[in-house]
């Protein structure tokens, strides 16, 4: 068994040459290719993940929007209901007061009407009384009374002249 320094160095150089050749001719290009491929796959996976995330986000936004919208709708409904109630109450009150006002007006009008009616009735009565008086007067005066009345009146006129 012999150890020969020259041979050791020779084998080192031999190994070094193989190392250099393999490194530059095989490892570097192949590793670069593999790295590129890995990166592309990773990019694709990342893109897919991004898309998924985007989708999730969109879904979340959708859900949020929906819930917000429904909450808003409910709130609006409540508000409208409340307002409507208030309005109704107000309207009711208004109409009530209107009704009372109308009632008052109506009753006053009624009173007025009654008064008028009464008045017209009174005048009717007066008329009737006059007509009756006229009739009674007409039938109660005879020729003698006529003459007497006319004589009296002539005297009266002459006096007034």
């Amino acid at each position, binding site marked *: 068994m012999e150890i020969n320094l020259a041979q050791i160095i020779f084998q080192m150089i031999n190994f070094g040459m193989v190392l250099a050749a393999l490194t530059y001719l095989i490892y570097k290009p192949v590793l670069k290719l593999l790295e590129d491929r890995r990166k592309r796959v990773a990019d694709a996976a990342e893109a897919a993940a991004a898309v998924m995330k985007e989708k999730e986000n969109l879904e979340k936004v959708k859900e949020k929007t929906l819930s917000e919208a429904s909450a808003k709708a409910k709130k609006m409904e409540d508000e409208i209901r409340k307002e409507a109630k208030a309005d109704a109450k107000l309207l009711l009150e208004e109409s009530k007061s209107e009704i009372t006002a109308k009632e008052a007006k109506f009753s006053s009008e009624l009173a007025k009407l009654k008064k008028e009616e009464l008045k017209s009735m009174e005048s009717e009565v*007066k*008329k009737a*009384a*006059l007509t009756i*008086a*006229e009739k009674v*007067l*007409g039938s109660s*005066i005879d*020729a003698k*009374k*006529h*003459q007497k*009345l*006319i*004589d009296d*009146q*002539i005297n*009266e*006129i*002459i006096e*007034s*002249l």
Partner: protein
Amino acid sequence: MLQIDIASAIALSDLQKKKLESSLQKKYSNKELVFDYQVKEELIGGLSVSVAGELHDASLRARLNQLANKI
């Protein structure tokens, strides 16, 4: 000339007419008087004299009207 319209419920007698004409002539002595007699039953009783638009109504109708106005 002065128009005098005299309306009465029944026709006036001549005496009555003379008495009325003479007294009126006395009042309007300087004027010529024209007398027009009418019978109006609606006066009910009495007579009305109108001299140149001035009415002296002494009829019962006028009295009734006065009553109606009062009540």
